[in-house]
């Protein structure tokens, strides 16, 4: 198990999806949960230590359901990776709950360059397999399986 940092941000799960990669992300609130879930995607794509953020992308999403919002948020990152040709290492999320959940996100990263970054997996998609967002005691938790 790869436990990132002293304060658990996310954890890769080894025996959940044999050909793919599963992880759990944690957060004290929804903002932190979403940020950590995004960081796990960033780390799967490239070694974060080799990325120097030079570009910034802002986007907004909304959804009535929190799990669908997370699914769309992570899928948006994969879309931006390919369409903007970037890998990312920083993320800031702000979620407000009115009638719907409204999300504002800023992600930062750099143009892909195999000479500069240590690239890892070209993630195909976020799957709905065992996909879950829930609150346990005082902590938010999400389970994600990505197709590699």
């Amino acid at each position, binding site marked *: 198990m790869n436990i990132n940092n002293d304060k658990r941000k996310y954890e890769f799960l080894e025996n959940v999806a044999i050909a793919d990669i599963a992880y759990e992300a944690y957060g004290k609130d929804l903002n932190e949960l979403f940020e950590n879930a995004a960081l796990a995607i960033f780390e799967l*794509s490239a070694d974060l230590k080799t990325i120097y953020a030079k570009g910034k992308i802002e986007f907004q999403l909304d959804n009535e359901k929190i799990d669908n919002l997370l699914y769309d948020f992570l899928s948006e990152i994969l879309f931006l990776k390919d369409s903007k040709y970037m890998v990312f290492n920083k993320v800031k999320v702000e979620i407000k709950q009115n009638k719907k959940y409204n999300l504002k996100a800023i992600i930062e990263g750099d143009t892909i360059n195999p000479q500069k970054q240590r690239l*890892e997996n070209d993630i*195909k998609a976020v799957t709905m397999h065992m996909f879950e967002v829930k609150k346990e005691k005082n902590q938010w938790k999400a389970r994600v399986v990505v197709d590699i």
Partner: protein
Amino acid sequence: MQQNFEKPKDIRQVDKTIWEIPTSYKKGMLVPARIYATKKLLDGMDNGVFNQVTNVACLPGIQKYAFCMPDGHWGYGFPIGGVAAFDSETGVISPGGIGFDINCGMRLVTTNLTFKDVQPRLRELVDTMFSTVPSGVGSRGFVDANKSQFKEIMEYGSKWCVENNYGWKEDLERTEGYGRIDWAEPEKVSSKAIERGMKQLGTLGSGNHYLEIQVVKAENIFDEDLAKKFGIVEPEQVVVMVHCGSRGFGHQIGTDYLRIFEGVMKKYNIDVYDRELACAPFQSNEGQDYYKAMACAANMAFANRQVILHRIREGFSKVFRTEAEKLEMHMVYDVAHNIAKLEEHVIDGKKKKLVVHRKGSTRAFPPHHPELAKIFKETGQPVIIGGSMETGSFLLVGTQKAMDETFGSTAHGSGRTMSRAAAKHQVRGEQLQKDMEKKGIYVKATSMSGLAEEAGFAYKNINDVIDAVSQAGISKPVVGLKPIGNVKG
């Protein structure tokens, strides 16, 4: 939090390589599930397979059985190795039964070179392929298609490539469905999918995708006559195999429609065990839209493998200073293993149109099947099963038994037995690269950890998979192919 499933107690052996789980196993099963495997492979299967294949057996309109092939393993929604056919009037279509990598598939190309010719230049050859066929995260291809060209690619697939000088005319008849699915409708594809995938034509991707240089060994020719008909004419002959799909374009279409389908299941009164089994009636607007968008991705994948072939021919031609035509770089075949298609099959003695889903399963049509090109009428359809990059791959041929039993389907690869993380704990990419070189396989990869994840020990023994499909009679081995050079995505 791991999901623990038990192997079903009431699994029954129907034949030497067929195992059946009855409908009584799970509430809602409409048909039994059947797993094609030797006892050894069945015992080694992760228990998630049994859960997933029986979930599929609950989907509306499913016909005969929910199948899992011998290389089956736990996937998302459907197991990898899953085959399911649905009534085209009353049944469903499910993106989870196809996979995000729509028309991921295999292409095999011959040369008239032998191992002796290639060995001294192997490094140069692999390095050339590595630089001309980009792989890994965010790679961009050499075909700089604009939006209107990309729209044509969505509609015409390989045909567009050949018309634009990225291939030979004969390549088309050697591709499943002539490399073009004619029910594609670009209007059903989101602008996001186009934006994501437009510049990726000519790229391998990552994960288990590869471009491999292989050699035919005398002891691996199992049917000399058929091998010759497919273009494998002598021992020591060198061939090239490609495994890749529709890249970000297909992945985005899968993502878009998964969300759409999830939102309409209630409307159609469909309940599923797993969100990844989201589906819609095939005849519904959403079902038809997905079917047409999926065809666009399938065409893009055919085109992707076609332009990659063009690069392979250029590369060989450059390294050996001989034209590709003179090197006799003919295609053996190109076949999809992640796709759904409307096909005619016999159910209870009657011909019926079915939506056949193959997810990690290869079509294996017999001789004289009306969908095969003339050149394969007598032989049957070539089937390409890719092994791990260390163990080798196989060329087989489709059979009537596959048509009768498994909707004309067989296995697609060796199938993982070990998770990616576990494989990385066992070996480092750099070490694996050295070990493989000692075994005579020169490999080049964009990601060393990605390489480690694809180590041979993480997969089932391909020979066991071939034994199983061969014993079951759902395809027949023609030639085994041994890797000597590999570009890994």
